[in-house]
Protein backbone atom coordinates (compact mmCIF):
# COMPACT_ATOMS: atom_id res chain seq x y z
CA UNK A 1 0.00 0.00 0.00
CA UNK A 2 1.62 3.25 -1.13
CA UNK A 3 0.23 5.32 1.76
CA UNK A 4 2.04 3.19 4.30
CA UNK A 5 5.27 3.60 2.33
CA UNK A 6 4.84 7.35 2.15
CA UNK A 7 4.17 7.62 5.88
CA UNK A 8 7.13 5.38 6.64
CA UNK A 9 9.55 7.42 4.57
CA UNK A 10 8.27 10.70 5.99
CA UNK A 11 8.84 9.44 9.53
CA UNK A 12 12.23 8.12 8.50
CA UNK A 13 13.22 11.44 6.92
CA UNK A 14 12.18 13.42 9.97
CA UNK A 15 14.15 11.06 12.19
CA UNK A 16 17.13 11.27 9.84
CA UNK A 17 17.05 15.07 9.76
CA UNK A 18 16.71 15.40 13.52
CA UNK A 19 19.49 12.88 14.09
CA UNK A 20 21.78 14.77 11.74
CA UNK A 21 21.02 18.11 13.38
CA UNK A 22 21.62 16.59 16.81
CA UNK A 23 24.88 15.02 15.66
CA UNK A 24 26.03 18.28 14.13
CA UNK A 25 25.26 20.14 17.34
CA UNK A 26 27.24 17.58 19.37
CA UNK A 27 30.22 17.51 17.02
CA UNK A 28 30.24 21.24 16.46
CA UNK A 29 33.01 23.40 17.81
CA UNK A 30 32.57 25.17 21.13
CA UNK A 31 30.50 28.28 21.19
CA UNK A 32 32.25 31.55 21.74
CA UNK A 33 29.70 33.86 23.29
CA UNK A 34 29.53 37.20 21.54
CA UNK A 35 26.29 39.14 21.47
CA UNK A 36 27.02 40.69 18.08
CA UNK A 37 27.31 37.27 16.50
CA UNK A 38 23.70 36.39 17.20
CA UNK A 39 22.26 39.52 15.60
CA UNK A 40 20.55 39.29 12.24
CA UNK A 41 23.03 39.22 9.41
CA UNK A 42 22.69 42.42 7.45
CA UNK A 43 26.05 42.53 5.72
CA UNK A 44 27.89 43.91 8.72
CA UNK A 45 26.25 47.29 9.09
CA UNK A 46 24.32 47.82 12.35
CA UNK A 47 20.91 46.17 12.28
CA UNK A 48 18.22 48.59 11.26
CA UNK A 49 14.97 48.45 13.13
CA UNK A 50 12.17 49.79 11.02
CA UNK A 51 8.65 49.29 12.21
CA UNK A 52 7.19 48.26 8.90
CA UNK A 53 9.16 46.94 6.02
CA UNK A 54 7.15 47.74 2.94
CA UNK A 55 6.63 44.61 0.93
CA UNK A 56 5.20 44.86 -2.55
CA UNK A 57 1.63 43.71 -2.83
CA UNK A 58 2.68 42.09 -6.10
CA UNK A 59 3.79 38.96 -4.29
CA UNK A 60 0.31 38.57 -3.01
CA UNK A 61 -1.30 39.28 -6.38
CA UNK A 62 0.91 36.67 -7.99
CA UNK A 63 -0.22 34.15 -5.41
CA UNK A 64 -3.91 34.90 -6.05
CA UNK A 65 -3.52 34.57 -9.80
CA UNK A 66 -1.57 31.37 -9.23
CA UNK A 67 -4.49 29.83 -7.32
CA UNK A 68 -6.98 30.70 -10.03
CA UNK A 69 -4.91 29.39 -12.91
CA UNK A 70 -3.73 26.36 -10.97
CA UNK A 71 -7.31 25.22 -10.49
CA UNK A 72 -8.06 25.71 -14.16
CA UNK A 73 -5.03 23.58 -15.01
CA UNK A 74 -6.09 20.90 -12.53
CA UNK A 75 -9.46 20.77 -14.30
CA UNK A 76 -7.64 19.83 -17.50
CA UNK A 77 -6.08 16.73 -15.96
CA UNK A 78 -9.15 14.46 -15.88
CA UNK A 79 -9.99 15.69 -19.35
CA UNK A 80 -6.50 14.84 -20.59
CA UNK A 81 -6.62 11.28 -19.25
CA UNK A 82 -10.02 10.53 -20.75
CA UNK A 83 -9.55 12.28 -24.07
CA UNK A 84 -8.28 9.24 -25.97
CA UNK A 85 -11.00 7.06 -24.45
CA UNK A 86 -13.66 9.54 -25.49
CA UNK A 87 -12.23 9.56 -29.01
CA UNK A 88 -12.47 5.79 -29.11
CA UNK A 89 -16.05 6.03 -27.84
CA UNK A 90 -16.89 8.46 -30.64
CA UNK A 91 -17.48 11.48 -28.38
CA UNK A 92 -14.27 13.19 -29.44
CA UNK A 93 -15.71 16.35 -30.93
CA UNK A 94 -18.05 16.93 -28.02
CA UNK A 95 -15.29 16.62 -25.43
CA UNK A 96 -12.91 18.68 -27.53
CA UNK A 97 -15.42 21.48 -27.91
CA UNK A 98 -16.44 21.51 -24.26
CA UNK A 99 -12.81 21.81 -23.29
CA UNK A 100 -12.37 24.42 -26.01
CA UNK A 101 -15.01 26.61 -24.36
CA UNK A 102 -13.23 26.24 -21.02
CA UNK A 103 -9.90 27.07 -22.63
CA UNK A 104 -11.39 30.17 -24.22
CA UNK A 105 -12.36 31.41 -20.76
CA UNK A 106 -8.85 30.60 -19.56
CA UNK A 107 -7.24 32.46 -22.44
CA UNK A 108 -9.51 35.42 -21.93
CA UNK A 109 -8.57 35.54 -18.24
CA UNK A 110 -4.86 35.38 -19.01
CA UNK A 111 -5.25 38.03 -21.69
CA UNK A 112 -7.11 40.29 -19.28
CA UNK A 113 -4.48 39.91 -16.59
CA UNK A 114 -1.73 40.78 -19.02
CA UNK A 115 -3.71 43.70 -20.42
CA UNK A 116 -4.58 45.12 -16.99
CA UNK A 117 -0.90 45.13 -16.05
CA UNK A 118 -1.54 42.99 -12.98
CA UNK A 119 1.51 40.99 -13.95
CA UNK A 120 3.90 43.91 -14.40
CA UNK A 121 6.88 43.97 -12.06
CA UNK A 122 8.97 47.07 -11.92
Amino acid at each position, binding site marked *: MPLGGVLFIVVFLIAFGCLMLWLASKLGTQKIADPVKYQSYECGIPVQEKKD*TKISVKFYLTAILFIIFDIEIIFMYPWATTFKDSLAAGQGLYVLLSMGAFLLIFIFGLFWEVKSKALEWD
Partner: protein
Amino acid sequence: MTPDVFLFWFLALTTVLAALGVIISANPIYSVLSLVMTMVGVAAIFVTLGAYFLAGVQLIVYAGAVLVLFVMVLMLFDLKHEIHAFTRGPVTGAIKIAAVGLLGGMIVGAIALSANSLMKTENNGIQTVIEGDSTKALGKLLFSQYLFGFEALGVLLLVVAVGAVALARAKGGTHAQH
Protein backbone atom coordinates in the same frame (compact mmCIF):
# COMPACT_ATOMS: atom_id res chain seq x y z
CA MET B 1 -5.37 -4.67 14.21
CA THR B 2 -4.96 -4.52 10.45
CA PRO B 3 -2.82 -1.83 8.80
CA ASP B 4 -5.91 -0.14 7.33
CA VAL B 5 -7.50 0.29 10.73
CA PHE B 6 -4.28 1.57 12.22
CA LEU B 7 -3.91 4.05 9.36
CA PHE B 8 -7.44 5.32 9.84
CA TRP B 9 -7.03 5.95 13.56
CA PHE B 10 -3.61 7.46 13.12
CA LEU B 11 -4.77 9.83 10.38
CA ALA B 12 -8.00 10.72 12.14
CA LEU B 13 -6.13 11.56 15.33
CA THR B 14 -3.51 13.64 13.50
CA THR B 15 -6.12 15.51 11.50
CA VAL B 16 -8.31 16.36 14.47
CA LEU B 17 -5.35 17.42 16.60
CA ALA B 18 -4.06 19.62 13.79
CA ALA B 19 -7.54 21.11 13.37
CA LEU B 20 -7.58 21.91 17.08
CA GLY B 21 -4.17 23.50 16.63
CA VAL B 22 -5.65 25.85 14.03
CA ILE B 23 -8.16 27.33 16.45
CA ILE B 24 -6.06 27.18 19.60
CA SER B 25 -2.72 28.70 18.60
CA ALA B 26 -2.67 32.43 19.22
CA ASN B 27 -0.07 33.13 16.57
CA PRO B 28 -1.69 33.00 13.12
CA ILE B 29 1.50 31.59 11.59
CA TYR B 30 1.17 28.47 13.72
CA SER B 31 -2.54 28.35 12.89
CA VAL B 32 -1.81 28.24 9.21
CA LEU B 33 0.91 25.63 9.60
CA SER B 34 -1.51 23.46 11.57
CA LEU B 35 -4.01 23.96 8.79
CA VAL B 36 -1.42 22.67 6.31
CA MET B 37 -1.08 19.60 8.52
CA THR B 38 -4.87 19.19 8.53
CA MET B 39 -5.03 19.43 4.75
CA VAL B 40 -2.30 16.84 4.34
CA GLY B 41 -4.17 14.61 6.77
CA VAL B 42 -7.42 15.05 4.86
CA ALA B 43 -5.61 14.18 1.64
CA ALA B 44 -4.31 11.00 3.28
CA ILE B 45 -7.87 10.19 4.41
CA PHE B 46 -8.99 10.59 0.80
CA VAL B 47 -6.35 8.02 -0.13
CA THR B 48 -7.71 5.56 2.43
CA LEU B 49 -11.11 6.12 0.81
CA GLY B 50 -9.72 5.29 -2.62
CA ALA B 51 -9.98 8.80 -4.06
CA TYR B 52 -6.38 9.05 -5.25
CA PHE B 53 -6.83 11.84 -7.74
CA LEU B 54 -8.81 13.95 -5.31
CA ALA B 55 -6.09 13.49 -2.71
CA GLY B 56 -3.58 14.87 -5.20
CA VAL B 57 -5.86 17.76 -6.06
CA GLN B 58 -6.39 18.45 -2.37
CA LEU B 59 -2.64 18.75 -1.89
CA ILE B 60 -2.06 20.82 -5.02
CA VAL B 61 -4.98 23.20 -4.58
CA TYR B 62 -5.28 23.54 -0.82
CA ALA B 63 -1.86 22.80 0.58
CA GLY B 64 0.08 24.03 -2.43
CA ALA B 65 -1.89 27.09 -3.49
CA VAL B 66 -4.47 28.39 -1.04
CA LEU B 67 -2.40 27.99 2.09
CA VAL B 68 0.71 29.39 0.45
CA LEU B 69 -1.41 32.47 -0.12
CA PHE B 70 -2.38 32.53 3.55
CA VAL B 71 1.22 32.18 4.67
CA MET B 72 2.34 34.91 2.30
CA VAL B 73 -0.37 37.28 3.47
CA LEU B 74 0.52 36.68 7.11
CA MET B 75 4.17 37.32 6.34
CA LEU B 76 3.34 40.47 4.41
CA PHE B 77 1.34 41.79 7.32
CA ASP B 78 4.13 40.88 9.69
CA LEU B 79 1.79 40.39 12.65
CA LYS B 80 4.28 40.01 15.45
CA HIS B 81 1.88 39.43 18.31
CA GLU B 82 -1.83 39.18 18.65
CA ILE B 83 -3.45 41.02 21.49
CA HIS B 84 -7.02 40.01 20.86
CA ALA B 85 -6.65 36.55 19.41
CA PHE B 86 -9.92 35.32 20.89
CA THR B 87 -13.26 36.95 21.47
CA ARG B 88 -13.59 38.79 24.75
CA GLY B 89 -15.89 37.88 27.61
CA PRO B 90 -15.92 34.50 29.35
CA VAL B 91 -19.73 34.26 29.20
CA THR B 92 -20.09 34.70 25.45
CA GLY B 93 -17.09 32.44 24.98
CA ALA B 94 -18.67 29.74 27.12
CA ILE B 95 -21.95 30.09 25.22
CA LYS B 96 -20.17 29.77 21.91
CA ILE B 97 -18.22 26.71 22.99
CA ALA B 98 -21.43 25.20 24.35
CA ALA B 99 -23.13 25.85 21.01
CA VAL B 100 -20.34 24.14 19.15
CA GLY B 101 -20.40 21.22 21.57
CA LEU B 102 -24.16 20.93 21.18
CA LEU B 103 -23.88 20.87 17.41
CA GLY B 104 -21.09 18.30 17.56
CA GLY B 105 -23.05 16.13 19.96
CA MET B 106 -26.14 16.37 17.79
CA ILE B 107 -24.27 15.36 14.64
CA VAL B 108 -22.47 12.47 16.33
CA GLY B 109 -25.70 11.35 17.97
CA ALA B 110 -27.54 11.49 14.68
CA ILE B 111 -24.84 9.41 13.03
CA ALA B 112 -24.88 6.90 15.88
CA LEU B 113 -28.67 6.62 15.76
CA SER B 114 -28.80 6.25 12.02
CA ALA B 115 -25.89 3.82 11.97
CA ASN B 116 -28.25 0.93 11.29
CA SER B 117 -29.90 2.54 8.29
CA LEU B 118 -26.52 3.67 6.98
CA MET B 119 -25.25 0.12 7.16
CA LYS B 120 -28.33 -1.01 5.29
CA THR B 121 -27.72 1.42 2.45
CA GLU B 122 -24.16 0.29 2.37
CA ASN B 123 -25.26 -3.26 1.75
CA ASN B 124 -27.84 -2.20 -0.81
CA GLY B 125 -25.30 -0.03 -2.61
CA ILE B 126 -24.68 -0.67 -6.26
CA GLN B 127 -21.05 -1.33 -5.61
CA THR B 128 -19.55 -0.85 -2.20
CA VAL B 129 -16.02 -0.14 -3.33
CA ILE B 130 -14.87 1.81 -6.34
CA GLU B 131 -11.59 0.31 -7.41
CA GLY B 132 -8.97 1.08 -9.99
CA ASP B 133 -9.66 3.70 -12.59
CA SER B 134 -11.75 6.07 -10.53
CA THR B 135 -9.95 9.03 -12.12
CA LYS B 136 -11.10 8.16 -15.61
CA ALA B 137 -14.64 7.62 -14.41
CA LEU B 138 -14.44 11.00 -12.72
CA GLY B 139 -13.31 12.65 -15.94
CA LYS B 140 -16.07 11.02 -17.95
CA LEU B 141 -18.73 12.06 -15.47
CA LEU B 142 -17.36 15.59 -15.32
CA PHE B 143 -17.59 15.95 -19.08
CA SER B 144 -21.00 14.42 -19.53
CA GLN B 145 -23.41 15.04 -16.69
CA TYR B 146 -21.68 17.92 -14.96
CA LEU B 147 -20.43 19.80 -18.01
CA PHE B 148 -22.52 22.86 -17.28
CA GLY B 149 -21.21 23.12 -13.72
CA PHE B 150 -17.72 22.74 -15.04
CA GLU B 151 -18.06 25.58 -17.54
CA ALA B 152 -19.78 27.72 -14.93
CA LEU B 153 -16.82 27.20 -12.62
CA GLY B 154 -14.57 28.40 -15.42
CA VAL B 155 -16.55 31.63 -15.59
CA LEU B 156 -16.55 31.91 -11.79
CA LEU B 157 -12.78 31.63 -11.72
CA LEU B 158 -12.49 34.32 -14.36
CA VAL B 159 -14.70 36.65 -12.35
CA VAL B 160 -12.74 35.93 -9.19
CA ALA B 161 -9.46 36.62 -10.95
CA VAL B 162 -10.73 39.98 -12.16
CA GLY B 163 -12.33 40.86 -8.85
CA ALA B 164 -9.44 39.88 -6.62
CA VAL B 165 -6.98 41.82 -8.75
CA ALA B 166 -9.24 44.88 -8.71
CA LEU B 167 -9.63 44.62 -4.94
CA ALA B 168 -6.04 44.12 -4.04
CA ARG B 169 -4.43 46.43 -6.51
CA ALA B 170 -3.40 49.80 -5.27
CA LYS B 171 -0.35 51.92 -5.41
CA GLY B 172 2.40 51.10 -2.95
CA GLY B 173 2.93 48.10 -0.77
CA THR B 174 0.98 46.48 2.01
CA HIS B 175 1.69 49.29 4.40
CA ALA B 176 0.50 52.17 2.26
CA GLN B 177 -0.87 55.02 4.34
CA HIS B 178 -4.16 56.66 3.60
